[in-house]
């Protein structure tokens, strides 16, 4: 059930009605039932995967949580009898037990993720490397497995770290893992951020409900009016890399960057808006990413929950691990204090970006994309002092003109790197990119070949202008907050206009090949 399907809208309307008609106590369980029904429509057998993750992580969390409680109770009870060393030894012993549970559970759940998502990729690489002819396995990737697995793992690590209390109720935990608005494409929510509003059984709040509805509508506008219209052209370009080269790639890259933004942020708007209609608060995933002045800043503003997940649950554990400590000592000894400190950070970052690439998809394209990000970030880091000096000497680098230049530069960089998202193989990607610089590829260009009419281009231009205006207006204060202060008639007119624009100009229904949300495939 895709967000943009009539079935989803019907399902949402019924669930909302039942939710607010149900007694407070029954609302969260009803939300779980609704989420399972939603998931069931994606494929009944997928329920097994998500159930295994929910049950195993919940059980491991419970064991770890109880062990933590027992540990502190024991230490409290025997405070006077135990020496500091005995306390430390006891804590270490208990921590080892908890670590074992954590490791086993991570192994199982990451194993499932790896098995369904990466087995064929591994087989293809083994066959390529060793000339073997291993057969591929036929396995469907469960809906949202990358998202719910990461959310569940994040929770378990938080319980292990003692930053959240273990959830005692299985159904409540299952609701957190399977909550239908964010199971398709995230955000990768944290248990600690969501649990209060998710389990509260919120009553109907008109303002909150309509705020959610506005957000949903805005998401639909971005997805149906802009992203899916751009997809008509991008789909053609990507679909025939032999035919579409040179200028088409250039236009395609640019269009894809806009499409990706409208598609992903639109999807997240729908997610957050739907959750808000149920009174559930979901964290923001974007902060005007295309206004970033550097790649580093971009990754603080784009897919925020994924980046912070990798930071908190991979980068920190890796960079603070004992082996990394030993490696730091080694590098300090051989490369000096300054470089010796930085090399382990770069190695940890390498692991993070390799994983980020792999998380996005089982393909070398994504791995190269991830490592390209890593390389640029590391080079930028190394060149930071040089830039600093340059900025000091060159006049005007503090002005808005230079800021716009940096924004455009970063946008261009992202645009080029996004090409790795598009094609199935590295060869196609590099070949297409190279064609931009081949003169012969620039002959016989025809805009009509992209499949968009003049009115489509006009809609894209107006849609982009609206998105840009909304982003600019949101810098100081959110557009919805601004709108909320305006007279009712104006708010109503904006709402009605957005609704009409989406219904009339949106790309959906018979005659259009509706595209899935891009991030559902990650």
């Amino acid at each position, binding site marked *: 059930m895709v967000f943009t399907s*009539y079935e989803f809208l019907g399902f949402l309307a019924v669930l909302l009605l039942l939710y607010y008609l149900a007694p407070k106590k029954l609302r969260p369980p009803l939300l779980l039932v609704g989420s399972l029904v939603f998931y069931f429509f994606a494929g009944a057998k997928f329920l097994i995967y998500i159930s295994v993750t929910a049950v195993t992580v919940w059980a491991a969390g419970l064991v770890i949580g109880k062990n933590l409680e027992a540990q502190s109770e024991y230490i409290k009870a025997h405070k006077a009898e135990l020496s500091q060393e005995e306390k430390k030894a006891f804590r270490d012993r208990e921590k080892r037990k908890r670590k074992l549970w954590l490791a086993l559970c991570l192994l199982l759940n990451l194993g499932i993720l790896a098995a369904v998502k990466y087995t064929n990729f591994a087989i293809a690489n083994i066959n390529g490397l060793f000339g073997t002819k291993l057969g591929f396995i036929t396995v469907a990737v469960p809906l949202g497995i990358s998202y719910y697995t990461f959310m569940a793992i994040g929770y378990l690590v938080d319980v292990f770290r003692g930053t959240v209390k273990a959830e005692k109720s299985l159904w409540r935990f299952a609701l957190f893992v399977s909550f239908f608005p964010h199971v398709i494409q995230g955000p990768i929510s944290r248990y600690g951020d969501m649990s209060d509003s998710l389990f509260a059984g919120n009553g109907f709040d008109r303002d909150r409900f309509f705020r959610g509805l506005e957000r949903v509508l805005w998401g639909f506008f971005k997805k149906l009016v802009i992203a899916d219209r751009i997809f008509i052209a991008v789909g053609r370009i990507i679909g025939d890399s032999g035919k579409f080269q040179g200028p088409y790639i250039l236009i395609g890259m640019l269009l894809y960057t806009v499409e990706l933004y409208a598609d992903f942020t639109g999807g997240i708007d729908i997610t957050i808006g739907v959750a808000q209609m149920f009174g559930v608060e979901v964290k923001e995933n974007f902060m005007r990413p295309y206004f970033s002045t550097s790649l580093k800043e971009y990754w603080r503003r784009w897919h925020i929950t994924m980046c912070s997940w990798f930071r908190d649950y991979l980068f920190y554990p890796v960079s603070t691990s004992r082996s990394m400590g030993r490696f730091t000592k080694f590098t300090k000894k051989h490369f000096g204090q300054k470089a010796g400190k930085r090399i382990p950070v770069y190695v940890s970052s390498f692991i993070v970006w390799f994983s980020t690439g792999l998380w996005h998809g089982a393909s070398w394209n994504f791995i190269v994309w991830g490592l390209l990000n890593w390389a640029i970030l590391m080079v930028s880091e190394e060149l930071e002092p040089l830039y600093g000096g340059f900025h000091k000497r060159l006049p005007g680098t503090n002005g808005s003109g230079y800021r716009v230049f940096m924004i455009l530069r970063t946008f261009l960089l992202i645009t080029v790197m996004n090409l790795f998202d598009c094609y199935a193989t590295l060869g196609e990607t590099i070949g297409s990119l190279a064609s931009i610089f081949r003169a012969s590829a620039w002959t016989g260009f025809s805009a009509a070949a992209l499949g968009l*009419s003049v*009115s489509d281009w006009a809609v894209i231009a107006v849609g982009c202008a609206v998105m840009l205006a909304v982003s600019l207006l949101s810098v100081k204060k959110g557009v919805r907050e601004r709108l909320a202060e305006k007279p009712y008639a104006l708010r*109503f007119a904006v709402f009605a206009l957005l609704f*009409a624009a989406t219904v*009339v100009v949106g790309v*959906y229904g*018979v*005659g259009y090949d509706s595209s899935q949300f891009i991030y559902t495939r990650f």
Partner: protein
Amino acid sequence: MKKPLKKIIVFILSAAVLIGAFDLIQRLLTPKYVDGIVEGAFVKEYYAEEMDHDVLFVGDCEVYENFSPVTLWEKYGINSYIRGSAEQYIFQSYYLLEDAFLYEKPKVVVFNIQSLQFDYSRSEAYNRMSIEGMRWSKYKVGSIYASMTEEESFIEYVFPILRYHSRWSELTKDDFKYLFSQPTVTHNGYYMRVDAKPAGSFPAVKPLGDYSFSERAWSYLYRIVEACRRNGSELILIKAPSLYPHWYDEWDDEVKEYAASEGLRYINFLEHTDEIGLDYSTDTYDGGLHLNLYGAEKCADWLGNILSTEYGLADRRSDSHLAAVWAEKIEAYNAEIAAQKVKYGIE
């Protein structure tokens, strides 16, 4: 004014404005079928009729282009109507017939069996033309569910804007001109063409692997038979005299056998072209696929004789009210003949 009351009024007003605007946009974007492809307008026109027909024709283009109700009235005083639309499938014909029975009980129903060859709908566009014009009833819902192709959704029939929204970039003056009402394009369901194109050669007849009609198609014919019996209407099965697509002898035998088993009359007009006086060099406008005005009048005349002599349909030309209604229709009919003659440069 008290606050809650004010809120309720504001809410109702907002909802009314939103619904009104939605309806207006929907009307604007929905095809008007007044020029070019007009077949989508046929089904809806029926409801403007006085429901007092003696004969109801049901079927696809082989009825709405091959029989002239005006001739039936002028020559036999038979008040008839054609409920047909482009490639109207047998299940759609069934639901249209049931829909018509909600309003009237015609003495005779004439059903063209050409559509027995299709078990499922082949085109969303044809579904739209057959279903959209129907008034809402359980029969419209039934027709939608029986017809929908994989790409279609029921909700798009409820709110046609969801289907036609993409027309926003191709709106014409007609879409604004006919926003609230459209002109009548048929003559009691008959689609007129006065031009002529002699029948030529057709693609070679391909033998079929299996000549039997599908169970699904048969089941709808059974339902048509049952509906006619239930409503006291005599059912006549016909095969109109279109030369192409080819009507196989094996198909004809199947229908004959069925008609005999059910005690129904079956007339294959292709076997009576000489009696009717059809001349395929002058009586067809598209090379033999459909008849033009002259062919349609000949067929109506021939059938009218059967209807009045063998089915005892009374001559109602002395009914002054009906005669007045038909006088207007005949005037419009003749006006269109004249207009089309000018259009096609016919003397």
